[in-house]
């Protein structure tokens, strides 16, 4: 089966967490909105959002079409893909824990987004710069250490070693944690350079994931969209620490 991933074409965004899992799994997929022609591109994506004939319509991209299943919400998609591709523990306790970590990452992603859009998603960053500066300063001072500290602790307390977040094997949560460190390092290079000295495990974890053959090949390919100032992780120097 070829999965069909629906996400905005110009950004990594929330869709990137799904792409990373599909890439590591070696699963065949089509990034529909990045394709052209009939049944592709953004119009194909919009049809799922706008069509009154879809009973279980997703709220927003990303969503995944797997055969007849249409699955929305990043964490939900990953919860679906993980067990099918050996990227989630077999035991229920491990699966629930992996999902919990993914939901925590979703919370972090929302907070990162709010550093540049603290007032409204419908407004441009330039319309909320002042508020963004305040929000980003608080994020870097209080929330970033809390989240990084938490994932550092998860690695440290993993009884099967600190190579992965859950047990002895890679899960989709590890791929998402990789993306978090990559994105934060793009958006806040100064703050993350300082953080790398304190949260060594999570940065070493990021480096290990980056070297996995399929992930390395993906990162070097045109399928990996570069970070840019339209996505979740945006680099505005004024929002970074000095």
């Amino acid at each position: 089966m070829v999965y069909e991933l629906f996400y905005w074409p110009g950004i990594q965004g929330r869709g990137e967490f799904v792409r990373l899992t599909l890439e590591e799994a070696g699963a065949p997929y089509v990034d529909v909105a990045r394709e052209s022609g009939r049944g592709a591109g953004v119009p194909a994506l919009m049809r799922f959002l706008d069509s009154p004939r879809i009973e279980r319509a997703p709220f927003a991209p990303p969503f995944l079409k797997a055969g007849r299943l249409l699955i929305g919400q990043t964490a939900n998609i990953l919860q679906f893909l993980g067990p099918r591709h050996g990227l989630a523990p077999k035991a229920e306790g491990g699966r629930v824990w992996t999902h919990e970590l993914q939901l925590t990452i979703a919370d972090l992603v929302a907070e990162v987004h709010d550093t540049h859009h603290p007032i409204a998603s419908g407004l441009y960053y330039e319309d909320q710069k002042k508020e963004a500066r305040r929000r980003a300063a608080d994020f870097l001072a209080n929330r970033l250490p809390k989240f990084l500290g938490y994932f550092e602790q998860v690695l440290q307390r993993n009884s099967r070693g600190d190579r992965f977040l859950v047990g002895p094997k890679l899960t989709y949560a590890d791929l998402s944690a990789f993306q978090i460190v990559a994105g934060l390092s793009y958006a806040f290079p100064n703050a993350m350079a300082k953080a790398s000295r304190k949260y060594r495990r999570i940065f070493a974890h990021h480096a290990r994931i980056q070297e996995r053959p399929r992930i390395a090949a993906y990162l070097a390919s045109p399928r990996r969209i570069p970070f840019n100032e339209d996505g979740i992780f945006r680099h505005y120097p004024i929002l970074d620490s000095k």
Partner: protein
Amino acid sequence: MIAGHTARFDAAGNLKPWTSWGVALEREMIFYQRCPSDHGYPRFAYVTFLDGDWTPSADRTDTIPSTQAGMGIVSYLKFYEFSDRHEVGYLNTARSMGSYLVREALTPASGAYPAFTRSTGTRERFPQPADCGSQADQPYEIEPDKGGIAGYALALLFDVCGERRYLEQALHNARVLADNQREGGARESPWPFRADFRSGEGRGPISGNMSYILRLYDALLAHGYQEFSLPREALWQWIIRHQIPSAAADGGLFAQFFEDHDTPTNRTAWSPLNLARYLLEGRESLDPKWRSHCGTLIEFVRTNFTHREFGVTVCHEQDEDKQAWGGINSTYGAVLAVYAKAIGSASLAREARQALDFTLYSIDEQGRPRDLAQSAAAGGWQEDAHTDVIHNYVDALCAFPEWIDST
């Protein structure tokens, strides 16, 4: 020498490109991806006069937002598609230009043309003030047809990236245009060339560029906005009954397009060529007589707006400007190429290729284009150097893919 390159000719004396189109265009696109950004936009999205080092011209603070960014969006979306959507930087540059139009370049939200994309403006004003009209616009004037260009470009942008604010502005521009649409006739187009956005009072009875408003209506109809069905039909009927026949006579209904001119009878090559491009894209589905209509439009341009440089037939802009600026000459080459392909004319294809080869000389080794081959250095009008040029090469390459590599 042409624009700093030694002119190359084949044995028959035909001009050859200084390098392959693929190399030159890629260098130019890479050069523009490195354009500095200010205020969240690449500089070439909102500064009309830049030199080859991205320095704004000290004495030209006037700008042309809708044409420059609107045609820029069209160029970047076409190039993005042409390069198999691999380089999302091109898409994101188009988005930056769209965001500039939507966020910075609108009239105030009241009057006859409220929140309408500006035809002209003033550099370094974010957003543009109410009285920003420049070039030959009065301070409170807009050009309705430029709202068609911007609106159409924004509708395309929505189709590719899905951001609703672009569609909303396209829809808004179209509604404002429909509210101000008149029947038109033998001496006036359905909109005046200029209008005071506060009162709607027009200046210049003829606006030659009607095809982009038609494109805007078409794009919105394709999204299910049936409210544009009647305005679209009325505009189409005016084009068929009055404007195209005018090209077979004196071409008077193709007067006025460029922002820096205001002679009411000043005919241009831009509008008939872009109408021909529209017909060539739709062919029978649009107009059963597309072949003869395109022939009429192109012949009108060949008769009135071409001259020869270095043995090449090149196209100049308008009655009042006889120079083969990059925008108009590449438009000529592209439309002629697509027409030549459609009717199977090898001689017109050769002429088209030569015109485009000529403008290619304006790109230097580092990918920096000049607005006009005769200009002393890289840069100048950004729409003539870049934003209204790239899409023309893509159109020609879609008709003749083999032109990308041949030297």
